[in-house]
């Protein structure tokens, strides 16, 4: 099994987001592997251990993303690839990320590509499906169970409150949903070994990509924090009056009915 995992470096979930000058401030912030990508890495390692093969983790970003790749190697991935766009591109969007990844993966003969369901920063959930489309392979999102038998794949996916069972075949791209597995913590010997594992660094030139080909198609108009949550309102009076008022408010104020 030739397995690839798409990994994104994201803000630590415990970080306080500070917006200043229309941008999210990164100074002094801690970064982690996108938590959904951890499920993807864990699944890839388990599948490799069961079926043999190799796990390669891939990320697009700057030099700093090497840390997250080393963590993935410490968890048990075999190789890592950093597609460094720091010098070439100011920004990336779902289109440009998927395009760059497809140029990297097109001749790699991947049997299985795993990604997180969404990244906790942008939260678009688009890069995986767009990449599968560019590569012309099947894809299934929000996967909570993955069974591979030969080239046949049986999948359970989360469909918001229920689950759907699907059958498909390799080569395949899946995006991991919470519940797929319990990601391991990098072990101490794993961290030692990770130092010696190959980490390849590529730039757009190495993939024969012209900067114009990956010009972003999404324009960010504004970045702002969600408004402070206002205090709730407690209705008073006898029960039937409260119900009447509630219906009234849902209709006139909240405008949901």
């Amino acid at each position, binding site marked *: 099994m030739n397995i690839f995992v798409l990994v994104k470096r994201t803000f630590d979930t415990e970080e306080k987001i500070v917006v200043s000058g229309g941008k999210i401030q990164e100074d002094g912030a801690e970064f982690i592997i996108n938590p959904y990508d951890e499920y993807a890495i864990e699944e890839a390692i388990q599948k490799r251990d069961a079926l043999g093969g190799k796990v390669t983790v891939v990320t697009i970003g700057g030099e700093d993303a090497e840390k997250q790749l080393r963590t993935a190697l*410490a968890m048990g991935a075999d190789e890592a690839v950093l597609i460094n766009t720091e010098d070439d591109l100011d920004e990336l969007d779902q289109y440009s990320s998927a395009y760059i990844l497809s140029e990297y993966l097109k001749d790699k003969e991947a049997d299985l590509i795993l990604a997180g369901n969404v990244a906790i920063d942008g939260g678009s959930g688009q890069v995986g499906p767009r990449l599968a489309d560019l590569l012309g392979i099947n894809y299934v999102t929000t996967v909570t169970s993955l069974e591979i038998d030969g080239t046949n794949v049986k999948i359970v996916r989360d469909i918001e409150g229920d689950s759907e069972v699907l059958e498909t075949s390799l080569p395949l791209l899946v995006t991991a949903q919470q519940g797929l597995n319990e990601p*391991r*913590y*990098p*072990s*101490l*010997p*794993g961290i*030692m070994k990770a130092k010696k594992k190959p980490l390849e660094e590529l730039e757009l030139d190495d993939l024969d990509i012209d900067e114009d080909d990956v010009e972003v198609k999404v324009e960010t108009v504004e970045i702002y924090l969600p408004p402070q949550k206002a205090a709730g309102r407690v209705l008073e009076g006898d029960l039937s009056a409260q119900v009447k008022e509630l219906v009234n408010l849902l209709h006139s104020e909240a405008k949901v009915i």
Partner: protein
Amino acid sequence: MDFRLSPDLMEMKNSIRDFIDNVVDPLAGQIDQDDHIPEHIMKLTKDIGLFGLSIPEEYGGTGIDMVGKCSIYEEIGRTSNGYTTVIGAHTGIGTVGIVDMGTEEQKRRYLPGMASGDIIGAFALTEPSAGSNAVALKTTAVRKGDKYILNGSKHYITNASIADLFTVMAVTDSSKGAKGITSFLVDKSAPGFIIGKTEEKMGLRGSHSSEIFFEDCEVPIENVLGVEGLGYVNALTILANGRAGLAARNLGSSQKLFELSVKYAHEREQFGKPIFEQQIIQHYLAEMAMDIETLRSFTYRVAWMVDQGMNVIKEAAMAKLLGSEIYNRIADKAVQIHGGLGYMKDFPIERYYRDARITKIYEGTSEIQKNIIAAQIHKEYMKTASPAHIK
């Protein structure tokens, strides 16, 4: 002078901290109550490689230096000290002897299993009549053909109930005092080796201390660890180097208590404002923070000295003593800041308060540490003073 840890070490420290805070600590209360560490926690602890902390990479461990070990010990101090002790006793006195003094054959036989946690190590020195006065050992080992026959008993042996391999000190030549003691590696399945009852303790629950008995216990000669007659001398070095690790564990527990106290002081309101706004609480926290930074600096300096191969007998005793005193005063202040809640079992503070007390007693009491420090001061003076000054 560079006080930063290497990036690899930072990664290890962070991984262990996440594991301790998110996986182990939520069960710390249960471990204390049941006096038992759940099997799945032990399994995950093995998987993450904590049991191989002192074992070189070539035998399957992590093989990090003392600074590295202390930075990990600091993190495992952030939870149930019973859990901390199970790992600390194994990775410290339980394995270091074999790593430092074992023959190649002994290392190959035991270390890979000890690194994975499949073989748990324990260290058996203390006897009912030989506590602080460790040379008064009564357990004997008599050579008979290609075996030694051990007779006697030990008590308060940490990890005894779960250990597979014991490093046992026994008298091989009673005429030579401290230099007539030999270390043996005793397998739990050795004929005549009996594990006795487990003590009920005030703290460190989840870690078991038990009696062990040797009744004509047979140990093959190839299980002598190090040189015959040098067992006690070697044990002293192992114990001395390990003291920096104890200080690091106490540092972690102190840090955890401090974090809980800062949080509580900001959340708990009395007299219409958070208690943090009371100057006395601020002063308690300032004192705690100062103690912690002092302990941190000193602990890592002693660890660094161990890594340089320097003699740390005096400094390690100081670190052990300082660590236990600071931990105890911080535990006391943490209870005080938390008030009634600090005394309740629903909250972790009282557990640390109970756990802290043993640190002034085990692995050399505070009084013994002071004796060691004073003995070294005397030795240093005698080296430099001219004979005329010495009466």
